[in-house]
């Protein structure tokens, strides 16, 4: 069974996304409410998550900064990260693409196809 870590400062979005992935794909979900908590959760999770779904705009440490920190940690650097963003400006998209994340997904996402979108971005065939 796949394990996904969701990092978002909005509790409602964490809950809806978690429920959506559990109900549609049957994945196991771990959540964290900030970048710092996310790094801890990813490190403490045994086994490490198969993928991380992370919000871009978060207070203190935003998605891109969290991603860069994770890349410096050899244990976490291999985990594919998908950014989840409500920003759809072209300039933001290009900035995200340059970070080296595995993909960008947009809010508001469709709860029934979110798992499919993650599979598509990560090349998962399940």
């Amino acid at each position, binding site marked *: 069974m796949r394990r996904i870590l969701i990092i978002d400062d*909005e509790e*409602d*979005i964490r*809950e*809806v*996304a978690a*429920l*959506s992935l559990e*109900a*549609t794909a049957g994945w196991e979900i771990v959540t964290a409410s900030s970048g710092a908590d996310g790094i801890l959760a990813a490190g403490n999770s045994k086994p490490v998550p198969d993928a991380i779904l992370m919000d871009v*705009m978060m207070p203190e440490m935003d998605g891109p900064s969290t991603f860069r920190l994770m890349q410096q940690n050899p244990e976490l650097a291999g985990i594919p990260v998908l950014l989840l963003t*409500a*920003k*759809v*400006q*072209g*300039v933001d998209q290009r900035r995200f693409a340059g970070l080296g994340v595995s993909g960008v997904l947009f*809010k*508001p*996402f*469709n*709860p*029934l196809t979110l798992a499919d979108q993650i599979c598509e971005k990560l090349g998962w065939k399940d």
Partner: protein
Amino acid sequence: MSFSLTIFSGLFLTCICLLGVLALRLARKVRQQQRDLGGLSQTLERSREHAEEQKHRLAERSDLDRAKDEFISTVSHELRTPLTSIRGALGLLSSGLLGDVDARAHNLLRIASTNTERLIRLINDILDLERMESGRSPVNLRRCSLVDLSREAVEMMSALAEAAQIRLELNSYAAHDSIYFDADPDRILQVLTNLLSNAIKFSPERSTVSLEIDANADALSLKVIDRGRGIPVDKLESIFDRFQQVESTDSSKKGGTGLGLAICRSIIQQHGGLIWAQPNQSWAQPNESWGQPDHNGAQTNPGTTFCVQFCRSARIGDIAFPREIAPLAERGEGLILVCDDDPGIRTVVREQLRRHGYDVIEAGSGEEVIALANEQTMRNAPSPAISAILLDHYLPGLNGWETLRQLKSSVATAAIPVVILSVSSPSERPLLVGEAQGWVQKPYNESLLLAELGRVLKDKAGTVKDSQHNLRTSRLTV
């Protein structure tokens, strides 16, 4: 001796007198020139003040634009966040994945879901339009085939058409080698799917929606033809404005956002093309019977054609970097002041005129027209005087009619011929007709605009007084 002395003193006195007169004249001339200089420096001062004011106003406007863009962008982002939770929760509940709900509750969930989706589309459209109009949406030009794009659009819309029991057909009258053009394929596809989905939504069941494409060496055109209830003639232009629908309930009934056609027009203008709507051609009889009120008193016509036209020479590059265009025709046809509050229309008109050798200056308001016209006439050679003014009639602030009156009542600008560029026909504005030298009705076509401008300029060069009686109108011919 005394005789010669007398002659000498006489001559001397005459010389003195002459010198005195000369000195007096010289003094008067100097005073006159001093006055002239004073006047000139005052004029200079005024025009400098005016230029400063213009600059200040422009800076203010761009600050305002930036603040507006940021505001819209932030609002869109802030709206998406709660919508994500709402959409997610409603979607999961109504899917039945979390257990069954009873029929009445399911219906309520469906209503909430549908309207959430509508709100999301609306926010996306607002942001789309805002990005395009603020010039922050890059146009990615590629060589595309109009036929391939049309086929793709028809394919994408086939499910919607099937659900509405509409037949979709694609007809190409273009020679194979003429269907390629430089465009942003995603954007053109957006226009095509938008026009097709509109046509499908407003067509009766079991009717046909046709997409027709044609191309030659100069231009490409596409038409989306429906057999729907038609659009009243007075709404044919306004439907391209934001949130303008033929009936106020259309948007809610058909699930549209009221921004689709505004987005289409923005995209087409970015490509240097034109888009307009017209009653179906086969019904546009010379007696214009389609435009007559039916028994309900409403103006109807059976079906509408949305036309898009691209000029091959109007490249996006030209529009993005207007200063770098190599002139396609020799310059020197004349300097035209183009006034329209819509920057998109100004861009299209500018490009069309430039291609035919005219130099163009632009104004966004009646006030700017007056200021620019005065400024240009005050300046002498080498800057050329304005040959003609193309004036939009509907302007915020000082409207077209007032602008025209002020131009004609000032000695400095009265002689400049004015061509009205308006969505209304000259018969609706008899007052303007008397003052203006020409009239082009929007949506216009390029050759008529050029013909009318050419005629007005020729009249100006010839007998000016005849031009008043010579007013002809250029209406859209299809």
